[in-house]
């Protein structure tokens, strides 16, 4: 029982980070139907920005986080403007390959600039307390609590933006029908930019948390979380914001259970087998609606 609770706590923590990343995937996909493969690498950039802010600029964790979020939001917008915007009318395949190109660019650029070393945050960057529950058998760290709290906060903020602000209304309109939205006087380009900025900002939060939680930063650290978060977005139903959150937590818990009761080597194959099963039986995702494609 204690073991199960422990795995659930670990799973929720991991799932929270996945959910944060998955939000960016799903928002971008909802608006321009593009799998932004570079999204995972934004996470890596954020972790490095925070790392250098803490080690070189000697600032605290909170300013480092803010800096990373701002930097990545701008980076996300820049990537969209330079690489994706010229291809908005091009075949989907071209845009997808461009996204892969941007991802490879960020990864290899990172390896080239920063080297292949794994780096760790200096000790004492975050004060990590461990709390015990259920008579000392279950442990939860303050880091895990922070991750869960921040994840929930971001989700509430996103729900507020999407449902109660003007720009959120514009985002929903563009996702529903780009041309009609443009005819109604919505500036589609700036809505797309806002979407990329928001998505990248969430990925940045996830990246800093990931770096602190596992206490390593590496130029390829964004690869696997990015891929897994995409799987989470697909499982939840891509383009659906609550779906990305549900998918993220679902995937995190599955991973924790597989590592806890099976072997951690089996974690990745299980995730991808799950992805293929979902795609086969519910291609629209667990929360998605089936749509019939019209000719």
């Amino acid at each position: 029982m204690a073991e199960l609770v422990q795995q659930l706590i670990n799973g929720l923590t991991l799932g929270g980070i996945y959910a944060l990343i998955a939000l960016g995937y799903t928002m971008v996909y909802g608006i321009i139907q593009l799998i932004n493969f570079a999204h995972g690498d934004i996470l890596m950039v954020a972790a490095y920005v925070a790392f250098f802010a803490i080690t070189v600029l000697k600032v605290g964790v909170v300013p480092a986080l803010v800096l990373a979020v701002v930097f990545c939001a701008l980076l996300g917008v820049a990537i969209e403007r330079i690489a994706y915007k010229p291809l908005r009318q091009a075949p989907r395949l071209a845009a997808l390959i461009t996204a892969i190109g941007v991802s490879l660019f960020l990864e290899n650029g990172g390896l080239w600039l920063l080297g292949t070393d794994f780096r760790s945050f200096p000790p004492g960057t975050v004060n990590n307390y461990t709390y015990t529950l259920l008579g000392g058998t279950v442990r939860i760290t303050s880091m895990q609590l922070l991750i869960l709290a921040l994840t929930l906060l971001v989700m509430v903020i996103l729900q507020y933006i999407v449902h109660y602000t003007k720009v959120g209304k514009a985002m929903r309109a563009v996702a529903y029908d780009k041309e009609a939205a443009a005819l109604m006087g919505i500036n589609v380009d700036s809505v797309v930019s806002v979407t990329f900025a928001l998505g990248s900002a969430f990925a940045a939060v996830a990246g800093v948390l990931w770096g602190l939680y596992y206490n390593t930063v590496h130029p390829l650290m964004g690869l696997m979380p990015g891929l897994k978060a995409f799987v989470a977005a697909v499982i939840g139903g891509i383009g659906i914001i609550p779906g990305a959150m549900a998918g993220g937590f679902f995937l995190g818990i599955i991973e924790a259970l597989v590592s806890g009761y099976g072997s951690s080597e089996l974690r990745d194959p299980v995730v991808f087998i799950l992805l293929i099963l979902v795609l086969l039986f519910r291609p629209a995702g667990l929360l998605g609606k089936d749509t019939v494609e019209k000719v």
Partner: protein
Amino acid sequence: MGYFRSKNIAIFLVIIGIYFAVDWLLEEGIITKFQQVNLMLLGINVILATSLNLIVGFTGQLALGHAGFMAIGAYVATIFTVKLGQPFALALAVGSLAAALAGVLIGLPTLRLRGDYLAIATLGFGEIIRGLAVNIEYVGGAAGIMGIPRLTTWPWLYAMTVLTVVAIKNFINSTHGRACLAVRENEIAAEAMGINTTYYKVLAFTLGAFFGGLAGGLYAHYFYLIQPSTFSFLRSFDILVMVVLGGMGSLTGSVIAAAAITLVNALLQDLALLRMVIYAALLVAVMIFRPQGLMGNKELTLNILRPRGGADRGIVGD
């Protein structure tokens, strides 16, 4: 009727000529050890790029799991030579067939998915193969298999490369190949014309997987060792880069791009990381400024040596 046309004979002679020329250079030791490695890599890359082009370029199905098929071919062939002591030819054949079988098994369900979903499903499949290889102790787990005999020689490599390119070219020019092109151009229209789109998608996928497996078998028996990490999705992306740069739907484009990338890799050996940055930037630039790639879907044929008039005969020349 057309098998002995002068052009076919000329191509045949050129193919034979290249073989003996390189063979002589190898015998005389003019090609250094380092160049020899790259020569082998070039052939393997040509096989990988042309076979992926069949799936992505000619049939229009974006698959990101080619390294998975390569892994199956490599592992199965290696099991046959190293663990079971079977001859190389049999091992290569069984490895390729195993990859083709995986192609059918993974293609049948996933090829119903479109575009992005197919891409991500095949990517997932490639990662599953890699994950399984890590978890199976029989094939060495994460450490892989070491001490594979070097059985891939120049005659083997050259024969297999030529076989792959000729087989894929003939497939594309056949009825089945035309059906694949129709699926790429417009799946719904193709279906309305009575083409069984699923059948042709799976067929192209299986053929591509077969040759991907062949490349894997050749790779394993040249480089002594195989590890699951050799076949990560980054390798699938590498192969995709060759296809895209060469032109999706151009076999000669794939051959040229595979050769060019292998050569540039060899020349810029010292700039290993910067090289990859340049590739990535190049990939994005090509997509923005020339989305059809170097060759588009045109082929480099002997027709360009002739006066104008015969040059624009269908998609793949003849």
